[in-house]
């Protein structure tokens, strides 16, 4: 292995806390969406589905930026490429 291969990555700061908060927000929105009738419940149901879709994609975006800043361009490109694939799939599905 070369020196660069053995360099330990520093995890993105605050990711663990952000993930904990995301889980709590997802549960709160899901509970409101499931239990409350009317437009509030429906809005919460829309929000929770949007939220659980957005959270992993935001995590990919934060990794892409983090790796780009670290100079790990190959994996940053892979992360950005993954977001492009998801975006392309969305466009195809929308057509």
């Amino acid at each position, binding site marked *: 292995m070369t020196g660069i*291969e053995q360099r330990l990555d520093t995890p993105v700061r605050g990711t663990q806390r952000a993930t904990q908060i995301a*889980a709590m927000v997802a549960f709160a929105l899901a509970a409101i969406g499931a239990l409350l009738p009317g437009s509030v419940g429906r809005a919460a149901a829309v929000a929770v589905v949007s939220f659980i879709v957005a*959270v992993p994609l935001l995590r990919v975006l934060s990794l892409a930026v983090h790796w780009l800043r670290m100079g790990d361009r190959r994996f940053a490109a892979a992360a950005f490429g993954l977001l492009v*694939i998801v975006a392309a*799939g969305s466009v195809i*599905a929308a057509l």
Partner: protein
Amino acid sequence: MNWADFALALVTSAVGAVGGLGGAVLLVPLLVLTGTPARAAAPLGLVSVAAGSTAAGARQLKGGLVNHRLGITTELFASTGAIVGALASGLASDRFLKLVLAAVALAAGVLGSRRKGIRNLPQPGLATADVGEHVGTLSGVYQLDDGFVPYQAKRFGAGAALFGLSGLIAGLAGASGGFVKTPASSEVMHVPVRVAAATTTFTIGITSAAGLIVFAFQGRLDLRTCATVCAGAIIGGHAGASVQSRLSPPHVRAFLSMALVVIAVVLAVRA
């Protein structure tokens, strides 16, 4: 609120978390067997997977077990598969989707019962400061009891092909495909099983997101039921993870595998 859907999501997520196979592989067939059309059950499965992945994220990060580079690289293939599968499932008949689901449940049952133990061994000279993933490679170090185990992903091509298949399964059937991803990482790519499982928990959220976006554009999301399943999956996932240390995962997996084989047979006969 449909309490039956809530209870199903809760119980399947709890059992799936203990067994390490994920809850959706049980949830989707059970929803179909209780009268939900396969076309409507698949998105609910992915909602349960995405919710479970979000709920488990913090716990997985705490142990430094997730290899994000491995996850993102393999996810290029899994997400592509999920999008293709979700697009194809919009054109498929309910009978075809039921048969796919039966095959997936059978495969999950067989693969789940064949999971192996520890392959990589601790190496002297490594310490807590070495734990994590390495920059620029698909390698890293994780802590196993009092030792520290280095690893390097191998046979990327074969692993990537299996990840593509797992994504296709997720898009077609609504199951997480984690029962393919974890063995693909551990048995084919020689990544330690704990790292493979933690990385899978991270990546199944991305695969589900890719599939759910397609399902949303196809108008296949019943948002109220999605919220109900999401709430059940988060509680069930937490409950399963908290009792995991008190139950025997191999025994739970054996039970799950048998249940999945029975479900697969019933689904195939009903299709």
